[in-house]
């Protein structure tokens, strides 16, 4: 009798089912290992696949952000605009930002901020070097896909996309 033939005593076996279970386990192990590799590469958050910089066509505006985020976990957006800029610069975040994120911190503090159907608007003072750097720490409050338009007045708009995992 072969090792893998069904026995009927003391238990009734089903080796075909057992073989399928082993095969499913092996597929599962490979899938888990792939998940680990993808995680290390940043497919789920933090890592080379996630961190990215979007730039305007004239390179005057750049946004550093994470393509992938987790619900309730802090994620960062850095908006940079190169000079020369006026004394005060208006930055507009599209409506999807406020519906997807809670702002944890915003540096520098805005001179004026407002919100409406257009999204969120912040008026910042430019730096002493004549450029602007805005650091936003935000916490996604729901999972899903976010497509966001970021506009720096006088410099044009950029579109970025972020996938928030549950």
């Amino acid at each position, binding site marked *: 009798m072969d*090792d*893998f033939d069904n*026995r009927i005593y*003391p*238990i009734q*076996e*089903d*080796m075909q*089912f*057992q073989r399928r*279970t*082993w095969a*499913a*386990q092996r597929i*599962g*192990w490979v899938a*888990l290992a792939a998940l680990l590799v993808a995680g290390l590469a940043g497919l789920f958050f933090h890592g080379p696949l996630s961190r990215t910089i979007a730039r305007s066509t004239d390179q005057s505006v750049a946004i550093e952000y994470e393509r992938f985020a987790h619900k*309730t976990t802090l994620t960062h957006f850095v908006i940079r605009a190169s000079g020369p800029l006026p004394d005060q610069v208006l930055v507009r975040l599209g409506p999807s930002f406020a519906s997807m994120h809670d702002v944890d911190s915003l540096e520098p503090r805005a001179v004026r901020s407002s919100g409406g159907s257009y999204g969120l608007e912040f008026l910042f003072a430019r730096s002493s070097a004549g450029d602007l750097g805005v650091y936003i720490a935000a916490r996604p409050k729901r999972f899903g896909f976010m497509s966001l338009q970021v506009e720096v007045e006088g410099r044009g708009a950029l579109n970025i996309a972020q996938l928030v995992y*549950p």
Partner: protein
Amino acid sequence: MDTIIRSLVVYFVLWGLLRLSGRRTLGKMTSFDLVLLLIIGGATQRALLGQDYSVTNALLVIATLIVTDVALSLLQRDFPPLSKLINGEPMIVVEQGRPLLGRLKRARLTAEQVLESARRHHGLERMDEIKYAILEANGEISVIPYATRQVTA
């Protein structure tokens, strides 16, 4: 609603991961296995409760898990093939004193581990004293010794 969905997802994902890991993870508890279970418990706690640590939310999580557990046990009772799928099936790994090496290898078991179980639970010394050894669905190894040991004069 969020709490209940989260609890269901965590329950079934955890079940799936433990089934994928195979029976050896469930059965024999080494110190590493204990650490693993403690870490799994800690990791899932926040996933279950989210940011809501209220008594109400905790009760909802517990109720969801209990209802799911009872529902699955009832389904298993009424649909035996489902029980096979959920729990797995026992498998003979030693037969008439002979280890079934192919099965042991696939189950990631060694003959020494079977002997250890036989020694611990039945005081058996050798493989040929084991009539049957069965790897149970929960990962434990059951040993059926021969009714009387052969005694050489």
